[in-house]
């Protein structure tokens, strides 16, 4: 068995099978189980190493040829695959509790497998095509057949489609830069094209306007999945560029541009989140602020870029899953996520409201929660470089905290006579409870991520140098 077949073809085919042959009630269990098994295999079986089980020797070969190009995983990819499919399993199991559409698990598996293929494809810049195809598969999830598409989804499609040509063409130009590094004109053109491509993919200011629109229009659970999946793989793709092209890391102008874009996203995301009167849009702006943090990390002149990135990415998956699940539970009952509709819901949906607030606080970097260790590490690195940037990041985080406090105030604003009642189902309470426990564990014992983080820097050897 080859690794690309196992982690790309199989989940894709399972996704197709679920879509066409499986009934909705089993899809969450089957999809979640498949993702969890793939995560466990990635954790237990090393790629390209023979493993003896009694008299049977098992070996997962690292690559496969496909139309003249190869898809390959290295041994170091095991931890990354375990993280990806582990978090995907969390999202798929959560569909049962969130009551999202039957297509979520099937299309979700296809999306994750395509995005995983984007990590494996060689030359790696072809990943832009796979990300574009994955983005298209998200559309049927965002717009149910009975709902008229809004402006957010159209903008999302346009921006993702714009990103691909820029990145593909910049990849071709970068090869020219490598051949003649002294050619300043080509270098500037390639850098600009690459920057524009990633600006569309990361939804850098002002290209993030589709995110709050989507949070208004689409199911929060699907939008949350999108906000987890696409930036995660885009970050890995961007790290590939930084690893491959030395001048991208060493150019001070480019580093400044990357950091400026990141700081702007954190500050604007935080401030806009604090001004919202819609708890879904708050999540959108918080995700924007966190993507800004990821961009800041990529611009840091540090050897810890990879560690910091994954220290932020892993809790992000959990936080967004918990937040999106809580939002979808509230939306099913309140029908709208505007403040005046969700006011006082803490007494009727205490589990969902608690989970939502803890996820929101975690995103703001509140101590003891999953987002705190990563933010502390980022601040430490950033403070050593620029106090001005640190201040702006602090303002952004303060905005997220203000948003969380406003949400808390609205949720508890109920009549004195209103009785406390748990209206969530036991599945919902269990899923939310597990998620909240995860938030505290990652916040209080971040060292449990160490086994995953240990191997990841070897994926991007040159960045750490």
């Amino acid at each position, binding site marked *: 068995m080859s690794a690309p077949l196992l982690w790309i073809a199989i989940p894709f085919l399972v996704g197709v099978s679920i879509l066409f042959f499986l009934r*909705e009630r089993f899809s969450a269990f089957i999809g979640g189980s498949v993702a969890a098994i793939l995560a466990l295999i990635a954790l237990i079986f090393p790629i390209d190493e023979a493993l003896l089980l009694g008299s049977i020797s098992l070996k997962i070969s690292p690559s496969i040829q*496909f*139309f*003249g*190009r190869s898809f390959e995983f290295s041994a170091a990819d095991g931890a990354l695959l375990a993280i990806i499919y582990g978090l995907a399993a969390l999202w798929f199991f959560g569909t049962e509790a*969130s*009551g*999202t*559409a*039957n297509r979520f698990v099937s299309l979700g598996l296809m999306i994750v497998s395509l995005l995983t293929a984007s990590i494996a494809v060689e030359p790696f810049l*072809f990943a832009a*095509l*796979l990300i*574009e*195809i994955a983005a*298209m*598969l998200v*559309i*049927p999830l965002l*717009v*149910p*057949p*009975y*709902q*008229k*598409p809004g*402006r957010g*989804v*159209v903008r999302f*499609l*346009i921006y993702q*489609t*714009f990103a*691909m*040509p820029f990145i*593909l*063409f910049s990849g*071709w130009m970068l090869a020219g830069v490598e051949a003649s590094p002294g050619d300043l004109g080509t270098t500037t053109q390639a850098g600009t094209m690459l920057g524009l491509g990633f600006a569309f993919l990361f939804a850098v200011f002002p290209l993030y306007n589709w995110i709050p629109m989507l949070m208004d229009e689409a*199911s929060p*659970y699907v939008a949350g999945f999108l906000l987890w999946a696409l930036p995660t793989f885009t970050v890995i793709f961007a790290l590939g560029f930084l690893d491959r092209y030395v001048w991208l890391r060493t150019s001070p102008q480019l580093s400044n541009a990357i950091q400026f874009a990141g700081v702007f996203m954190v500050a604007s995301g935080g401030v806009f989140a604090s001004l919202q009167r819609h708890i879904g849009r708050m999540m959108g702006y918080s995700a924007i602020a966190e993507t800004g943090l990821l961009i800041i990390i990529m611009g840091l002149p540090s050897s810890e870029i990879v560690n910091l990135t994954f220290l932020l990415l892993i809790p992000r998956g959990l936080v967004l899953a918990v937040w999106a699940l809580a939002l*979808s539970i509230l*939306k*099913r009952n309140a*029908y709208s996520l505007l403040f005046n509709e969700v006011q006082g819901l803490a007494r009727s949906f205490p589990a969902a409201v608690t989970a939502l607030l803890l996820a929101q606080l975690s995103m703001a970097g509140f101590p003891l929660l999953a987002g705190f260790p990563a933010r502390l590490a980022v601040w430490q690195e950033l403070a050593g470089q620029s106090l001005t940037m640190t201040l702006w990041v602090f303002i952004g985080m303060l905005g997220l905290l203000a948003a969380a406090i406003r949400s808390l105030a609205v949720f508890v604003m109920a009549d004195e006579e209103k009785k406390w009642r748990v209206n969530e189902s036991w599945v919902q309470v269990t899923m939310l409870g597990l998620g909240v426990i995860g938030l505290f564990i990652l916040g209080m014992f971040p060292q449990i991520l160490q086994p995953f983080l240990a191997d990841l820097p070897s994926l991007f050897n040159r960045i750490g140098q």
Partner: protein
Amino acid sequence: MAADIISWLAVGLMLATSTTMLISRDWRVSLGSLAAQYISVFWLASRHLPFVMGSVKLIAGWMVVAALGMTRLGLTNLEEEEDTFWPRGRWFRVILTFMVLLVTAGSTPRIEAAIPGLGLPVIAGGLLLIGAGVVHLGVTSNLLRVTLGLLTMLAGFEIIYAAVESSILVTGFLAIANLGLGMVGSYLLAAGSTPIENGEEL
């Protein structure tokens, strides 16, 4: 020499089809123009790609046109949305196309000088379609027209990219991306006309 003449004719056809798509209000005319545009795309892409790989672009493009056409045909109660921004109107769009033409004419020789070997018609055709696609996206919020704009922009990019990358995998992925855009466009056009089913999420 004959191939060069045909290539310039293909560029001329692209100018005609992209202008028609931008100006015409009738979706049948727009889709017909898109279908004709893919013939030019096929020809210019085939200047650098083998015939079979070039024909993939033509077939994929026509499949997209067929998918969009069949979907639009099934939507009887869909009204053309009136643009809500100013300036608007036919002449405004013609002026925009003229501006794209000017930018294309100005930048084609410079790109040819920077990247020799692409060929002037290939660069001109690619830039023209990219510009026309972007302009199209800038002046409409109609779903069919947004899809047409994206397909036009992508077709322009494909013409230029075919000159620098001839991988079968990339050609295949680009064909899938085109088909995907067509399918997504069709889905979005049809969305909202299907009644709500039990068990769907809110």
